[in-house]
């Protein structure tokens, strides 16, 4: 059974929560002094003249972590319905989830051995 009761509150709450930053920034816009001079708007670099920008190509070391994350995040999404219904499913569901998790653990071991989880 799929009942969407109570979700109108989610929409209303989303609206009200979105008003929090809007109201805060508007209130401060009315009250605060305006910005003076172009020097104030230079990029902070510990008091030095900034050398180059930050919008450049560089090696993101977190890339492999992000890839592994996607795999395991999807895994947890699959496991949520299994966990909720587990009391009705019994031993077979346990073995199935065991196989599912085992495959992913093999993947984790592989990523570990290949050095995808190393910081260097």
């Amino acid at each position, binding site marked *: 059974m799929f*009942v969407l009761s*109570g*979700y*109108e*509150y*989610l929409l*209303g*709450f*989303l609206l*009200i*929560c*979105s008003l*929090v*930053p*809007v109201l*805060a*920034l508007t209130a*401060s*816009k009315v009250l*605060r*002094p*305006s*910005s003076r001079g*172009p020097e*104030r*708007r*230079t*990029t*902070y*670099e*510990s008091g030095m003249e900034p050398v180059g*920008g*930050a*919008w450049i190509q560089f090696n*993101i070391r*977190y890339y492999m*972590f*992000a890839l*592994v*994350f996607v795999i*395991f*995040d999807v895994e*947890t999404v699959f496991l*949520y319905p299994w*966990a*909720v219904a*587990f*009391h009705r499913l*019994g*031993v077979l569901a*346990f073995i199935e*989830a*065991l196989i599912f*998790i085992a495959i992913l*653990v093999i993947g*984790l071991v592989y990523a*570990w051995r290949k050095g995808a989880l*190393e*910081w*260097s």
Partner: protein
Amino acid sequence: MNPGIDLQQRFIETLTDFGLSDGISKLIWMPVPMLLMIFGATVGVLVSVWLERKISAAAQQRIGPEFIGPLGILAPVADGMKLVFKEDVVPANSDPWLFTLGPALVVIPVFLSYLIVPFGENLLVSNVGLGIFLWIAFSSIVPIGLLMSGYSSNNKYALLGGLRAAAQSISYEIPLALAVLAIVMMSNSLSTVEIVEKQAGYGILGWNVWRQPFGFILFWISALAECERIPFDLPEAEEELVAGYQTEYSGMKFALFYLGSYVNLVLSALLVAVLYFGGWELPIPIETLADLLHIPQDNAILQVVDASLGITMTLLKAYFFLFLAILLRWTVPRVRIDQLLDLGWKFLLPVGLANLLITAGLKLTLPFAFGG
């Protein structure tokens, strides 16, 4: 079982007595719990900022804030007022739209997660079926906001801080989700109200923490990492990155980040109380107490006392964990980035998976103790 008071029902009944239709009464009621919750969360943040400063001061044998209001309790309010009046400096090289959108994207999902925080059977904004899963979903929006503000600042410190924050959030989200999964399995439901009700009846002995000790430790470590608290505050490690993704922020936008981080901390503490420490339940079941004093279950005063005790208990438990988080700040040093990622991926993730499978196995062998 005491059904507890239902404010929504009473409010709508009162309005329909005045001759309004049912739909309009419901519409008038809708924003009331939401505004109350946002107000409560903001006050909770002010209190925790004050507590943080007072406890930090006590840990270092200082006095801390003392002049603004009694015991300096108004110091956080003064801080907030100051930030409202501060000039808003947007770096000339930045992307102004993303620069403004970043803090908003960090604050909105955190506030939105209060939708599912229960203070009593009917004392929450909405008891949606997705429950705790909504929180997991919303908390994965926050790293997008952090990346956005780090990238749009066009500042090297901010960019590195934003990337670090995103990597940290995603690394600890999986152990967090796995810890919650074990609780969901024991409760047979995602709804936070049902999770608390499953812990009711036996007082302190029924709380989930006894059945999920590893899950609790997993959840607590991951929650601290998600909130970027010491020992996991690498994204804003001041020795290396100035202030991380917040480096270029000032005035109200900085205040939004600050607010967001504390709202998130209070939220995590509340959810620790709800998931592992019986939420609004007292250490001794209130039904037992009422029976001892020969008060009937449907007594109106008992219901009011029950509801207010429930709110107090939830807050007491949550603020105990907040206190622990603040003490931890002055107890442990910050971890390095490689240690942080190793802890998340090579320790917490396998432990989380093992904990989930052990819970499933125990549920099959001992169904009466693990929620049938």
